[in-house]
């Protein structure tokens, strides 16, 4: 299936709910959908287009909104994206469609504060347990402070 075919099939299937669709390059397709179509789009690409391999799931801070990007496919990579408001960053989890998303969703939850509805175990994965609540290091408003010296204030 060529890039154009995949793009056409997805835009035909989801119509209005596809907000932006483009080909980034050879074997690279990017599709931005509305949040209510996100899970259906992932399901459609994974099952109907038979690209049932989640190679990555990324979170991006887009200013007012947070973006979730699911990377699907062995050879051709289809990026299914959706944007959710920063003050209520809730999106359906895709772990029941693709269990591989488990750790990636936990990572996005940990570092960007995205809440995945229906995730079986949405715990911290990378940050320390004593990391303050509500501070998400990969958001743009977070500026890392200088590392603390190990020996209380001395040069050491």
């Amino acid at each position, binding site marked *: 299936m060529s890039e154009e075919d995949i793009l056409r099939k997805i835009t035909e299937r989801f119509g209005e709910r596809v907000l932006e669709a483009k080909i*980034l*390059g050879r*074997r*690279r397709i*990017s599709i931005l959908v509305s949040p209510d179509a996100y899970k259906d789009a992932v399901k459609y690409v994974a099952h109907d287009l038979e690209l*049932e*391999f*989640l*190679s*990555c799931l*990324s979170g*991006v*801070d887009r200013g007012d909104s947070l973006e979730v*990007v699911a*990377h699907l496919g*062995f*050879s051709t*990579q289809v*990026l299914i994206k959706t944007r959710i408001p920063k003050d209520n960053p809730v999106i359906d989890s895709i772990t029941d469609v*693709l*269990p*591989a*998303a*488990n*750790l*990636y969703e936990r*990572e996005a939850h940990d*570092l960007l504060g995205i809440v995945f509805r229906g995730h079986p175990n949405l715990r*911290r*994965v*990378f*940050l*320390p*347990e*004593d990391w303050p609540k509500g501070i998400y*290091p*990969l958001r743009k408003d*977070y500026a*890392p402070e200088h590392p603390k010296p*190990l020996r209380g204030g001395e040069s050491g």
Partner: protein
Amino acid sequence: MSFEIPIGPQHPIHVEPLMLRLSVEGELIVDVDVDVSYIHRGIEKALEVRPYIQGLYLVERICGICNAAHSLCYCLNVEQLLGKEAPPRAKYLRIVVEELSRIHSHLLWLGHYFHTLGFETLFMYFWRDRERVMDMLELITGNRVTTAYNTIGGVRRDLTPEVEQKLRRTLDYIEERMRYYEKVIDSEPTILARTQGVGILKPSDAVRLGVVGPHLRASGIKHDVRLDDPYSGHDEIPFNVITWDTCDCYARVKVRVKEVHECVNMIRYALDHMPSGDYRLKIPPFFKAPPGESLSRVEAPRGELVHYSISDGSDRPYRYRVRTPTLANLLSVVEMLKSRDGYEVYIADVPAILGGIDPCICCSARVVVADEARRRRTVMTLDDIIRISRDRGVERR
């Protein structure tokens, strides 16, 4: 009645910090919890505040063993953003170094794997031969471990005829040694007993859990980024994608041993058909990338590596996402360690199964203190450890 056994964060079966909490009934493992929180170094955030050229140095340090794959993936990503492509000679030189580091990584893994199974002699043998590969990497790139060979727009050094001769001799040596090792692995009863039928991962589960690399191919799935998504002239170089269908730890050993042969042949082909011309494009060190996004994938020794970047038109990435192969493979460890109907996993199988994915985890800061009497577990922070060690020091004085 099940008991909990912690393995890690520091444990002889693995040199890097990883915490496995095993729930066991007798000798059987019934549940597993993996904790990888000892490693996060905030590199994705750090990449957002550095110009592209400085990011290259940081990306190489994500993983010492896969450094060539990481720097290659980064360079491909930035080149894609700039709309540039490395010259043909650079592509072939990149393949030479990429495949050499795959040989070194696979030899390291094989040695380490047999070390965790208790076969120390084979460990010594593999690591001795690996040293020859490291010497070649040093000769070609100028560095033994962090090769710093790939750069945006090509590679840093050309290959001289003298070095090429030495490289060919080393390849002959490695090929002969690998034939011997294959014989050892197939005939040594200890290895067969410890690996055959251990850590089964069915092909359907492997795809479902997003497993990558040799681990996926050992479950019989023919996926290799070099074949499915050629990125550096791989469509011109003939090679076989090695798969094995027993889906156990033995398959993971076999796939890697056979892959070393493929690497040797690929390097030979690249040397024989090396294009002439420039080995790098002239790109100024500081530049602004046009707005857009780019996604690059590289078959690292441990599996598919994904770099995804978004540019807003400035001199540094707006967002840089790195998905390392081990993160993709971790979920399968949990799956393989759990006993199910007709599939039993014992505590003694843990090193074989965990080692089978070639885990790569770095940097530790904290420890877990298990208080068995009160059935309570607290995680100590670095500050706590420093405070306690200071207080103890005062007591002793």
